[in-house]
Structure formats: structure tokens, C-alpha cells
């Protein structure tokens, strides 16, 4: 992809935005984050900006200011909806934008994930994606009571035991993605025949068992849900290191990465491409999106000072796995260009505040990109996959 091809821009929606104090500066009341109306407004706004897709965050325990353990803070947004259902609620209220909910594979049933995401694709007319999530904390495991997961923290993360655990969890995740994908293919597109002459509704030769047997679960199939419009909804994953890069390379269509800057982006892209080679990926290469937390104002100074105000309210400087940018829309366009030259295909922007920064993306960044000929001026009619240059995959079971 050359640096002059149109940009792909997605927005990551979560609560009041990605700064933990953002809720104190939005105009909407806190209650609204738990109403359908808030989410429909957010996604419609992203759709007015012609963005490629939105993601919805989720996890199987309450948010925490600590990456590895729970906290008892009462001054930050806590609570989330099931993201697949949230995306389904938004789907009929939008027309073009892709809808990519987060759903965990460690504790949930691959069969239910498969039908849920296929249904989101049916409901939205081919706009569904999936952000695959691995649950690696004991807090999440205890909600299911079926397995014990040891506590990992910053210090033990690189230990042999921690890496072994992660390898196991990500191995299971790869199995889950494989099962989900097989289930999507388990109905051929023309399996429903409604043949009045023979009285047969189905051509049973066009339905296929998936017969998956793994070390954590087995699934016979076929699915109960017919093949979704995209054939395979877009599979995405966030990845920060080798093991997750390999999961993405094995199972995903798109990976979110967290480079600190353009130079780091070059290294990360290299590592992702190596992971693709190591796992023997075939077919379309991974789309690589850089995750960036953004605070956008007319000038970089204003953006910096707004973020400082948020930091002050939270009592600490924002810590993020992704690079945090405080800039003007023009400045951000320059930064994005640098990432593109480093081999990044697109961007998932995490608005610092759900109001101010989503608005600035739509009314500031997008027009800047458009004026340089780098962003669409209207949606085409295709599916989410086709927007990202991915074709409808051939059905693995079709003769």
C-alpha cells in the first residue's frame, strides 16, 4: 500500500472515552453510558465521518486502573454491556459503518460466539467484525469457576510460567477462532433450496459437520445459523508481543498494534510479518492498524492542556499501552503519514474523550484527510470486508 492510497480509519468506543477522567468533562450524564441512545449517537457520528468501522470494548470483569488486578476506585467509569449485543442494538440504527465488538474466547462458548457474530452480520447486512479477546486473569476465571488461572503481573510477565500460560491461552484462542470460522462455513450459501417437488427445505449435502477436536473443547456442528453475508465476518485482534502476533497471523484478518512512533511502527510491522511467515499464513496478508489515543484541538497546545486538565482530575498522568497524541488535526495527519510510510495500513483511534475527540475526528481529521485526497467522500455499498480490500472467502467445505 502506498502512502497515497486512501486511509482506513476506525474509532474505538469505550465508556466516556479512553481517559479515565473523561466522564467528568463530557456534557452527558454518567447514566447515559448505559443507555442505547448514547451508543447510537456515537456510532452515527462516526458514520457521519465515513469511518471504516467502530470497535466496542468488553471484558469479563469490571474495569480497573491496574492492568492485572482489580481496584476499588469509585472515580472512574465502571461497568460495560456485552459488546456483541450492543453492536446488534446499534446495527438497525446505522447503515454503512462496520461494527466490531470485542468478545472473549477463554471462557465463552465458541458455538455461541459463532452464531452471535454471524447474526450480527445478517442483521447489519455484512458489516460485522470481531475483536478477539483472551482472558488471562484469575478475576475473569473466577466468574466461571471452571479453571484456575495464576496471577500474572508486570514482574512475572516474562517468567517461564507466565509465558507458558499465555501460550496455552493463546493456543486455545486460535482453536476458538478456527472453530468459529468453520462454523461460519458449515452452511454453503445455497443450502436452503425450498424444493416443493420433493418437499425438501434443505439440501443436506450443503451442510457440513465441522468436527473440531481440541484440547479444550470439541464441536461437531454444523452451525444452527446460515452462513453470514460476508462469508466470514472480519476477525481482528489487539496484539502487543510475539505470542499475540502469532495468534493474529494464524486466525485474524486485521491486527491492532501499539507502536510508540513511526520508527517503532517499522519494527512492529516487521515483527508481524515475521509472525505471518512463522505460522505459514496463506491468503491475504494481515491488515495492520496502529492504535493511537488521541486528544485533538485546534492547536497542539490546547490539546495538551486539555489532557493535562484530565490528568489533574484523575490524579495521575494517563498510562496507556498505545501512544498518546495531543495534537491538531493537521499535526495528526502528518503523524499518520509517518506511520503509513512505516508500513501501517490503517488506524484505530481511541478518543481521549468520547465527545470532544470523536467530534474532532469527524469534523477535523476527516476533512483534513479528504482535502489531501486521502479519505473517501462517501461510502460505497460494499461489506466491511470489501471496504478493507478483502474478498468473500471461498467456503472451505464447498465442492
Amino acid at each position, binding site marked *: 500500500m502506498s502512502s497515497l492510497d486512501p486511509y482506513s480509519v476506525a474509532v474505538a468506543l469505550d465508556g466516556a472515552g479512553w481517559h479515565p477522567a473523561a466522564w467528568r468533562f463530557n456534557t452527558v450524564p454518567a447514566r447515559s453510558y448505559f443507555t442505547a441512545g448514547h451508543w447510537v449517537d456515537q456510532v452515527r457520528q462516526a458514520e457521519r465521518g465515513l469511518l471504516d468501522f467502530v470497535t466496542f470494548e468488553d471484558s469479563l470483569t469490571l474495569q480497573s486502573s491496574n492492568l492485572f488486578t482489580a481496584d476499588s476506585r469509585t472515580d472512574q467509569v465502571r461497568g460495560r454491556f456485552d459488546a456483541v449485543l450492543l453492536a*446488534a442494538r446499534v446495527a438497525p440504527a446505522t447503515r454503512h459503518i462496520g461494527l466490531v465488538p470485542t468478545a472473549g474466547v477463554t471462557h465463552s462458548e465458541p458455538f455461541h460466539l459463532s452464531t452471535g457474530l454471524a447474526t450480527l452480520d445478517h442483521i447489519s447486512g455484512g458489516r460485522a467484525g470481531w475483536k478477539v479477546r483472551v482472558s488471562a486473569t484469575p478475576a475473569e476465571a473466577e466468574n466461571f469457576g471452571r479453571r484456575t488461572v495464576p496471577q500474572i503481573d508486570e514482574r512475572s510477565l516474562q517468567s517461564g510460567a507466565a509465558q507458558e500460560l499465555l501460550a496455552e491461552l493463546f493456543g486455545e484462542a486460535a482453536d476458538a477462532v478456527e472453530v468459529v470460522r468453520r462454523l461460519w462455513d458449515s452452511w454453503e450459501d445455497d443450502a436452503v433450496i425450498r424444493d416443493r417437488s420433493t418437499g425438501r427445505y434443505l439440501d443436506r449435502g450443503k451442510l457440513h459437520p465441522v468436527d473440531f477436536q481440541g484440547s479444550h473443547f470439541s464441536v461437531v456442528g454444523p452451525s444452527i445459523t446460515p452462513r453470514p453475508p460476508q462469508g466470514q465476518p472480519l476477525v481482528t485482534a489487539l496484539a502487543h508481543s510475539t505470542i499475540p502476533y502469532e495468534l493474529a497471523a494464524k486466525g485474524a484478518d486485521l491486527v491492532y498494534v501499539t507502536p510508540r512512533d513511526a520508527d517503532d511502527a517499522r519494527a512492529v510491522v516487521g515483527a508481524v510479518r515475521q509472525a505471518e511467515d512463522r505460522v505459514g499464513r496463506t491468503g491475504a496478508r494481515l491488515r495492520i492498524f496502529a492504535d493511537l489515543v488521541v486528544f485533538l484541538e485546534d492547536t497542539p497546545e490546547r490539546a495538551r492542556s486539555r489532557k493535562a486538565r484530565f490528568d489533574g482530575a484523575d490524579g495521575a498522568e494517563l498510562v496507556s499501552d498505545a501512544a498518546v497524541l495531543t495534537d491538531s488535526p493537521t499535526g495528526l495527519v502528518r503523524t499518520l503519514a509517518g506511520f503509513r510510510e512505516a508500513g501501517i495500513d490503517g488506524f484505530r483511534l481511541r478518543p481521549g474523550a468520547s465527545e470532544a475527540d470523536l467530534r474532532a475526528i469527524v469534523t477535523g481529521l476527516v476533512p483534513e484527510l479528504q482535502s489531501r485526497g486521502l479519505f473517501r467522500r462517501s461510502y460505497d455499498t460494499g461489506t466491511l470486508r470489501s471496504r478493507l480490500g478483502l474478498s468473500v472467502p471461498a467456503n472451505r467445505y464447498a465442492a
Partner: protein
Amino acid sequence: MTYSRRTGFPKKQVHLAAGFPGVNHWTVWSDPRSGSQTDFASFVHLAETAERGKFDFFFLAEGLRLREHLGRLHDLDVAGRPNTLTVLAALAAVTERIGLVGTLSSTFNEPYDLARQLATVDHLSDGRAGWNVVTSSDAFHGANFRRGGYLDKADRYTRAAEFVAASRRLWDSWSADALVGDQPTGAFLSDPDIGRYTFGGEHFDIAGRFTVPRSPQGHPVLVQAGDSAEGRDFAARTVDVVFSAHAELEPARSFYADVTRRVVAAGRNPDSVLVLPGAGFVLGDSTSDARDRAREVALAQVGPETARAQLEQVWGAELPDLDPDGPVPAPPTSHDTTIRLGQARHAIDPLAQARRWYDRATTEGLTVRELVIAETTRHTFVGTAAEVAGQIDHAVQTEAADGYILSGHITPTGLDEFVDTVVPELQDRGVFRTEYEGTTLRDHLGLGAPTATTLPTDRTAVSRPTVVGATA
């Protein structure tokens, strides 16, 4: 179950739900009017029609494995369904008042997942969610899930009861006033331990933090469908609505009396549980026109091959030489329950059932196809709109039911005529609402605030008082 549920009405009010046509031979896919069984537009049409008719709720059944007949996928009936919860969440976007109830298995789900999803739908629909708790019928389904296999009969309902109790614990883990959201002081929550819960039983030993704030209904409406004694007792102790398979007047009355007895024995007010049988209907311009149409519908529902498959299922044997338009063969002496897989079976002796079918065919001189039509087509209400309204009213006033979960046989327009013609008749009789009075499904059903259930097996009995009065 008395006349007093709604003050201001001298007559007991009818409750109606719209069931999306299912994956069985009642759904006529061969009719030129029949549309897609999976397109979202079909779900929208039926939900909007039912809401126009002021129905209490829209209802989805669920089956977690495609049905098999004689060891192969059953190809004569409609097959394939979207995910129940995902459809309900999307329907919340295109409807405003009607309840949204889905069938979900307590065997092949986990409380933390499912309680979150149901609370999410309750929020996203502003208090219209309901859950039909089923235990799923056999190990056949288990092959699609982590746990594999199935549960012993005795364990199915202890797991279901614990599942519901654990879900209620999760729904109660956020108090209604937990969300403060005071921007100047920075107090988002009132409680640093919000969402914290533990539940310890025979089937679940779980603890942690729940992620969904208390939903508009507090607890979604709970429905149960399952016919065994264990199933009925579970329903009597636990749920708000019983979905029954007994729609004909006399069996319905004895079922109603049986459930009422069990509800009282469980120490609950019988008014707090509604019994809604599943029912079909055929309307006509005159009584005889309706009968003619019912006959046509029956012939479309039971084609020759469906007649054979149905008899094979009841006989528990393959019948390759059977002539569907010929006489009924002698009843079997042994029964193979694996002839049909993936379909709920009811608690009946299969050999006795086959003998009863055979005796009926002999006495009434029925062919195989005629027998299957007589035994399986569920045309509960047949007549003109006024007659059908009268039948429903009569059944509800005489303790056969509190209303019905109605399914048309055409997807998705099968309820249109009912809403346009029977609903006004019911309204004229003063037994059905002309406008929604409340906003939540609990309101429509006349249910009070939810309460927690405590089980003898639960080692972690309630640590936090039940929150009431949260029905926004």
C-alpha cells in the same frame, strides 16, 4: 390467576405473545407467501405486527443443534436460526414497548455470561427483556459445547435452579443507586465494591465483579418451558410465566390447576405466575371457510414425507415401505429414541403413545397422513375473528390459561390477520389492552418487583439486601 390482577377491569385480562415460527412442520415454507426464516426483515415484520397489536411480548425458541432424522440432517422442515440474544438486541432498536423474550439453555451456558447478556438486553430495550429457561433435551446438543455430553435428569433442574439463583445474585450486585456520576466531585460510583458477588452451590462456585449496572426491570422476566414434574416444580418455585404445551381446553385446565397447586405449595401467590400455552390458529370469513382453510393448512404442514417422518418418530423405527396415504401399521414393541434427534421430547411413554395413535387410526379409519394431521397440527383456534376471540376469552375466563403464545404458520406475515381482526374483537370484549399502560415487560404482565431466590444448596446466602423499586 384471579379476576383481581388489574383493578378497573371486571374481567380477567388476556395476555398475548407472538412466537416466531419455529423449525418444525407447523411452519409452512412451501407457501408462496412464506418469506425468509433468517433475514432480519422477517423478525422486524413480526415484532412490529405484534407491537401494533399491543402484544405482551415477542418470543423466540431456540435449538442448539440441527435436527437429525434417521441419522441424517432432517431436511423436510425449516432449519437454521439466528442467535436468539443478538436478534432480541437488534429488535430493541425497531420496537418501543413490546417485550422481547428468548429461549436460552441453562445447561449450555454459564451464569456470568448469560446474566450479563440478559441485563444488557434489558438496558438496551429499556426494560423489556425476558428469558425462557430451558434445560435442553439431551446429550446430542452437548457435542457443540465445552461441557460436552449432558446432565442426569435429576441434575438438569438443580443446575437450572442454581443458574437462576446465581443470575439473580449477579443482577442484584449493583444497587439501583450505585451510579452517582457526580462530575464536580468525581464520584462515579457510590460503592468501591460495586458488582461484587459470590455464589457457591453444587453446580457453580463463582465469585467476582459483575459489569452491568442494575437494569430497568431489576431482573428480566423469567419464563419456563418443560413438562416433567421436576420442570413444573422448578417453574412453580422460580419463574413468572409458564410456557405450556397444553393448549386444548381440557388438558389446559388440568395443567393450569396442577401448576397453581405447585405454586401455592411453593409458598407463592398464584397471581404472580402466568400460564401461557403455545397455540396455533386459522381464521376464515365464516366458520366453514375457516375449517376449509384449516384443512388446507394441515395438508401443507403434513406432506406425505412429513407424515412418514412423524410416524417414524412416534414409532421409534424406520418405516421405508410405509404408504403415507395408506393404513397405519401395527404399533411397535420396542422404541428407538434416536430416530429423531435435536427435538424436545415430552415426558410420555413412547410405546403407549404409539398404541394410542394406532387405536385412534383404527377407530376413526384414518390413513397415516390423516392420523398425523389429527395428532400433530396444533390448530387451537379455528373460526371467524369473532369466534376465535370468543374461544380465547372463554378459555382465559375458565382457568385454562392466562393467555397464549401464538405462532402463525407463515413467516413472517402469519400474525397480520390475527392482529387486524381478532385483537379488535378482544378489545371490544374488554379483555385486551387498547394501549400499553406501562413501559416494561413486567408492567405488561402485571408483575411486581423481582425478588431474589435463595437455594438450600447455596453456601453463600445473600450478603446484600434485595433492591426493590427499580423498575424505571
